[in-house]
């Protein structure tokens, strides 16, 4: 509270050479109550938004601990005892290759994030360090393609994959990550702000090759940015639905989003709702927990890359 009144006190001080001290006192009091009222309103709105954000996930977690029968009986705020039961029925269901889907999603996301982060760093470093002809034009080009969504070329990519027998494989899902303009842009912003070019010159004098300079000097410097981008790429790939839905056909190759979408094709009245809620919990909650652990780091990363400095 003391710190909120500070600017007001300064304000009063500034005006104190005026004769009407009492009036100023009244004004300060009035201003103080206004701030308190504003504070109450602000906190109310914030709490309301927090509830709005958390409530769906709360229902999700509650319902994954309740049996199908309990869920159909109606909603309750208390947890049930069917967590392990739902877990087992989900993983034992032969129609839903849950373990396989989890591993598939994990594999694709890890590969995508690794490739994207490594090659984007490399590309960003090339733009940052070397002064070659056409550098600005090429970088402008990267900025331009950053805005055009990849979904637009998905028809062409799909037919291309069909031509080269790449349908129902992970190559078209993983390899395009090597060219991720957004990550390149982010990495370059980071490099431009933290890396002095003299560092590389010093390493050259010591006789290091260009690639080994990148691996041994630039990459350690880029670590914080790489970590942030790794998380974003991982999450993006984990959640990706549009293109995998077109490419993947066989059940064993499916990722989590495809499994979830696949449930809708079956008759909803035959659903074991506990199982469905459990599936969605597994799709959503682990990532959220990871996020909550790293949130400070991630939120800082959002502004770093998105707003041009």
């Amino acid at each position, binding site marked *: 509270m003391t710190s*909120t009144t500070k600017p*007001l006190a300064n304000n009063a001080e*500034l005006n104190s050479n005026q004769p009407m001290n009492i009036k100023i006192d009244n004004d300060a009091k009035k201003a103080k109550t206004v701030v308190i009222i504003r*504070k109450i309103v*602000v906190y109310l709105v*914030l709490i309301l*938004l927090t509830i709005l*954000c958390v409530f769906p996930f709360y*229902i999700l977690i509650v319902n994954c601990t309740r049996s199908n029968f309990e869920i159909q009986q*109606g*909603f309750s705020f208390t947890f049930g005892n069917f967590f392990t039961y739902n877990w087992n029925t989900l993983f034992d269901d032969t129609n839903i290759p849950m373990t396989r889907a989890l591993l598939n999603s994990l594999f694709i996301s890890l590969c995508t994030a690794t490739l994207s982060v490594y*090659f*984007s760093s*490399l*590309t960003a470093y*090339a733009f940052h*360090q*070397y*002064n*070659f002809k056409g*550098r600005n034009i090429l970088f402008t080009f990267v900025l331009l*393609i950053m*805005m*055009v*969504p*990849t*979904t*637009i*070329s998905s*028809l*062409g*990519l799909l*037919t*291309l994959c069909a031509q080269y027998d790449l349908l129902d494989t992970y190559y078209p899902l993983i*390899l*395009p990550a*090597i060219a991720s303009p957004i990550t390149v842009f982010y990495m370059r912003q980071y490099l431009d702000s933290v890396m002095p*070019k003299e560092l590389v010159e010093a390493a*050259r004098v010591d006789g290091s090759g260009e690639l080994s300079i*990148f691996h041994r000097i630039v990459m350690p410097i880029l670590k914080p940015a790489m970590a942030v981008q790794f998380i974003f790429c991982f999450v993006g790939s984990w*959640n990706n*639905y*549009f293109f995998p*839905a*077109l490419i993947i056909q066989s059940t064993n190759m499916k990722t989590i*989003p495809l499994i*979830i*979408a696949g449930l*809708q094709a079956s008759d909803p009245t035959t659903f074991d709702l506990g199982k*469905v*809620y459990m599936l*969605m919990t597994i799709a*959503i909650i682990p*990532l*959220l927990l990871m996020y909550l652990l790293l*949130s400070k780091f991630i*939120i800082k990363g*959002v*502004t770093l890359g998105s*707003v041009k400095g």
Partner: protein
Amino acid sequence: MDKRMKINTRKKKMSYAKWGYILLIPFFVVFIIFQFIPLMQTFNYSFYEYYSIGLTEIGPNFVGISNYIKIFQGSILKYAGNTIILWILCIIPQMSISLLLAVWFTDVRLHLRATGFFKTIIYMPNLVMAAAFGMLFQMLFASNGPIVDLLIGWGWIKESFNIGQSVWGTRAVIALMNFLMWFGNTTILLMAGVMGIDNTVYEAATIDGSGPFKTFFHITMPLLMPIFIYVLITSLIGGVQLFDVAQLFTAGSGAVNGSSKTLMMYLYKLIGTSRNYGEAGAVSVVLFVVTAFLSFMVFAFTHRNENKLSKKQKRLIKEYRLKEDTQDD
């Protein structure tokens, strides 16, 4: 000695610039194979009659612009309208709430506590799998789902309802999901913008007795405009691509008479279900033109400040750049 060193460095200079190109190879090769060629292929298909009925494939036969005529005589305008409606329903609360939060979080006089906690919470839905989120809301809003249950329990409504059968109900819920997923992100971006405003301006305003409303409309808003518009247009580009949430919430049907069917859902159906590659190509091209136009706006906008500079400033910058260029390899 001196001369020799000079020659030596010049030699190295040339060889170093070469490394710039070498390191760019992976990016551009992959870009050409996985994005550029497919994009050209997509453009190409839009001029061909090319579809499958069952196992028989028809085409590709060149038909000129008849695919475009077909989609415009069909429902593309309706789906474009739906997409815009869903975007507007979402963007109005999203921008207003985010602006409010950004101003509140950065207001020194309010001195809010636990802003870190609130920021963490409001950004959280952004990371959720959109497909799972759509499915979750479908179940939450089902006619025997938790929301209906709670509303009946609290006595707010008398009997169960199915929101999927209401045109505006479905649109509202889709907009709500999108709002939840994106308002945290927007808040954080706008906050960075507000914090970038020179603090002395606010101090001066406070001393002059400017209240929060006046300060907001006369100082914050005008100075925030560039970032505000940047966020608005990028969100429109995202809005054009609205897919996962709407697809899963309406189980691919797009609700009553396809009233919540978006452009991307239309494209998905053309490629995946109907396998009508000709028309899908035409829809993709239309989407490309729209997003390219919007991207160009963003680009022009972010570079506008540069163009506003006076001739002298431009010259100085150019000289500075040249100096910088000669300094590095």
